């Protein structure tokens, strides 16, 4: 009995709540209606602003969420949907149906639009903040004038300059003098203007890579003549690629034509010989201009220049070094560890000659004499 009474009482209370809330809702709707009919505040002829769009979307999102959760609580499926025919971008698009699937679709839609609104709001943040500040000041005559003046909320370039100045003189100021920007602990990097990239001045010595001989020889070779290949890889004979090569060839021709030998100084003669040898091995003339290379010394350059000087004295060229590196010393030598002595010898260019002091020379002489005596 008492339970029934309790239940009835609760039921009545609930019913009363419902009626009171409905009546309050009716009043709100009435006032809205009046507003819509009389004043121009709610006029949506020109469309709604970004901020009110945000409110509307959020409201519809919440409504759909509630309905979807009630559907799920009742066990309905979310697949019934009746999507509108037109795409999203057309202006006079029908409203969605009221199936559960439609509710989900509209939630997705409003979520996407809300995210985009967030981006746009970020761009307008400066102006919105200013408006809010004006509104917070309170309704006064000056505020109305300010709102009507379109230039009241224009951007302030002074703010940019302040940031730059603070960035430059930040080092000079003490730690106690905090810039107002940094007071909230957020690091704001200095804004720098973009500058065009100018190449640094290249010194004269930094040469560009030389034109490859395959391309440069095309200039001088006659394309109508047949192309000569050879097994030695040195190319056509004579391949006059450099000026020096052509000069020497001309000299030879002159000599054969006129049955003489050219009269030259010794130096010139030596240079000519050297250049002829170089050209015969495929290089350009030795001093033949900017491009040096291709000959014997260029091809085996890294071997001929002694790359790591060996300890066993001055070895002629790199061939000997390579051979000696491969050979293992015998076991006795390997077991003898010279240690500190080794590093002392090889300091500068190769091993030093031990300066033989007078004592050492005399000792050596004595040893010789004694060994000679023993032999006898």
């Amino acid at each position, binding site marked *: 009995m008492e339970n029934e009474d309790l239940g009835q009482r609760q039921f009545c209370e609930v019913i009363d709540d419902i009626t009171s809330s409905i009546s309050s809702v009716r009043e709100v709707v009435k006032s809205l209606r009046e507003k819509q009919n009389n004043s121009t505040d709610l006029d949506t002829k020109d469309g709604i602003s970004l901020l009110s769009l945000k409110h509307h979307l959020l409201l519809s999102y919440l409504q759909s969420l509630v309905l979807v959760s009630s559907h799920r609580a009742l066990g309905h499926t979310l697949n019934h949907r009746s999507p509108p025919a037109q795409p999203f971008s057309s202006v006079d698009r029908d409203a969605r149906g009221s199936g559960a699937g439609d509710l989900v679709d509209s939630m997705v839609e409003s979520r996407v639009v809300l995210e985009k609104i967030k981006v746009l709001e970020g761009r307008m943040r400066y102006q919105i903040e200013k408006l809010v500040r004006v509104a917070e000041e309170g309704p006064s005559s000056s505020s109305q004038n300010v709102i009507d003046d379109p230039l009241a909320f224009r951007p302030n370039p002074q703010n940019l300059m302040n940031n730059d100045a603070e960035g430059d003189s930040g080092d000079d100021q003490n730690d106690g003098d905090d810039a107002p920007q940094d007071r909230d602990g957020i690091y704001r990097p200095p804004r720098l203007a973009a500058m065009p990239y100018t190449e640094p001045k290249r010194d004269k010595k930094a040469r560009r890579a030389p034109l490859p001989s395959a391309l440069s020889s095309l200039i001088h070779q006659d394309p109508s003549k047949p192309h000569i290949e050879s097994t030695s890889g040195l190319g056509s004979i004579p391949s006059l690629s450099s000026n020096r090569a052509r000069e020497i060839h001309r000299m030879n021709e002159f000599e*054969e*034509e006129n049955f003489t030998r050219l009269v030259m100084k010794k130096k010139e003669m030596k240079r000519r010989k050297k250049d002829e*040898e170089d050209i*015969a091995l495929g290089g350009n003339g030795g001093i033949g201009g900017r491009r040096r290379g291709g000959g014997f010394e260029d091809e085996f350059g890294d071997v001929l220049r002694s790359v790591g000087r060996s300890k066993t004295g001055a070895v002629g060229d790199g061939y000997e070094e390579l051979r000696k590196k491969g050979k293992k010393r015998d076991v006795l030598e390997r077991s003898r560890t010279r240690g500190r002595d080794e590093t002392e010898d090889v300091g500068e260019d190769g091993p030093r000659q031990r300066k033989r002091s007078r004592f050492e020379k005399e000792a050596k002489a004595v040893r010789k004499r004694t060994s000679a005596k023993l032999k006898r």
Partner: protein
Amino acid sequence: MTDSSAPITLRTRKFITNRLLARRQFVLDVLHPSRPNVSRAELSEKLANMYKTDKNRVVTFGFRTQFGGGRSTGFALIYDDEASQKKFEPKYRLVRSGLATKVDKASRKLRKERKNRAKKFRGTKKIKGAEATKKK
């Protein structure tokens, strides 16, 4: 490696019969693969055999070996007769081939000094002056 009896190949290029100087002249290519440079005497012998002349008429000069060895290039002349050779050849080549003897002169410097000393005198006194300085 050096084989003195290895065969040599002689090639003649730019052969010209020079009627004005009474000779035949050409560029000579010698191929001597396993030998060092061939001597001029040997070359003139071989050329004389080839062209059926006296080996004294053949003059060779100006031989240069190409890089790597085995090949040298030079010039050769074959005169028709000795008279024209003596007429047209330069002195030094005649001396080389033995048809003329080398003139022994005092050194160039000495000659010039003597000349300068002789400038001081006139006429026959020059000879006297020269004798005087020679005796010194």
